[in-house]
C-alpha cells in the first residue's frame, strides 16, 4: 500500500513542473484569464520558434506574456495586441497568418495540389473506362499497371 502511494506520488511529480512553467498573473476574473490564455496560445515565441507564448519558458516569452497581460489590463483589443507584436516581431509571431497576396500560396496551395490530383485521377479513370468498358477486373491491363 505504501509502495503504491509512493508510486502515485512519483507519477504526480511531473505535474509540478507544469504548474511552475508559467508565472502567475493577477487576473481580474476568469474571463480575462481565458482570454489571455487563448491569445497567448495563438502567438508564437520568437526565440523558441515551435512553441506558443503560452507554452514557452524562454525569457522573451515571459516578457511578451507580461506585455500581453498589461495590454489586456489596459483595455486593448486582441487585434491591437496582435498588431503591436507584429509591428515589432513581424507576422512570424502569428500562428495563423492573415490571408493576403504573399500568403496565398500558403493558404490555397494545398487546395491547388488537391485539385491537380483530382484532375489526374479523373483523367485516368475516364481513359481506363474507355479502354475496356466491359472488364470489371483488370485482368488484361498490361499498359497502365502503375
Amino acid at each position, binding site marked *: 500500500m505504501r509502495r503504491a502511494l509512493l508510486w502515485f506520488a512519483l507519477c504526480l511529480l511531473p505535474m509540478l513542473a507544469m504548474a511552475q512553467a508559467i508565472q502567475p498573473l493577477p487576473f481580474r476574473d476568469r474571463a480575462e484569464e481565458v482570454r489571455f490564455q487563448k491569445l497567448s496560445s495563438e502567438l508564437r515565441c*520568437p*526565440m523558441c520558434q515551435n512553441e506558443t507564448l503560452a507554452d514557452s519558458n524562454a*525569457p*522573451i516569452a515571459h*516578457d511578451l506574456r507580461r*506585455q500581453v497581460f498589461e495590454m489586456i489590463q489596459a483595455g486593448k483589443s486582441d487585434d491591437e495586441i496582435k498588431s503591436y507584436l507584429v509591428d*515589432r516581431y*513581424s507576422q*512570424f509571431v502569428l500562428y495563423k497568418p492573415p490571408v493576403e497576396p504573399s500568403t496565398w500560396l500558403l493558404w490555397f496551395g494545398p487546395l491547388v495540389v488537391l485539385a491537380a490530383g483530382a484532375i489526374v485521377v479523373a483523367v485516368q479513370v475516364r481513359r481506363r473506362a474507355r479502354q475496356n468498358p466491359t472488364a470489371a477486373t483488370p485482368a488484361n491491363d498490361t*499498359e497502365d499497371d502503375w
Partner: protein
Amino acid sequence: MSRLIPFFAFIALVGLFGFGIWWNTRHDQHEIVSPLIDKPAPAFVLPVLGEPARTVDKASLLGKPYFLNVFASWCIECVHEHPMLMTDMKQLGLPLVGFNYKDDPEAATSWLAEHGNPFDVIVADRDGRAGIDFGVYAAPETFLVDAKGVIRYKRIGPITPDVIEKEIRPALAALAKEAP
C-alpha cells in the same frame, strides 16, 4: 510514354527537396527578418549603465549614424562576439552604443571589466521593455541606426568577420552614398 510519368514525378520531387536543402543552407531558419528595418527606431529613454541618474534617449543620439549592440553578461554568444566589437567594429569608425539587455548592472559592469568595454555609451534596459520595442528576442543583436534615427540594418546573432564584409560594410556604403 505514360510509363515514364512516375519517373518524371520522382525527378520533380527530388528537385523540390534538393531545392529545400539548398535553401536551408543559405538561410537561417531561426532568423526573423525585423519589420523595423527602414523604419524609425523606437523612441526610448534609458538610464546609463552604472549611472542611473543619467539617461540617454533616442533624440540625443541623432545626427550621426551609430551601432546599437544588444548584449548581456548572461549571454554566451556575446562572449564569442566581443572580440569583434573590440577590434573590427570599432575600426568602422561609428559610435558603438551598448544596449545592456535584461541584465544585473553589477554583473554587466564586471563582465565588461573582464572582457573590455568597446562602447561609447551603454544604456541599461533592465526589464526588457525597450528591448520589445526594438524587437529584440535573442542577444546578441546589432542595429545600424542612421543619422535621422532610422534603423537601416539588423544583425541577429554574433558579428563575425564575414558579417562585417558581406553585410555591414555594404550597409555603411549605402549610408555614405546618400549623405556625402
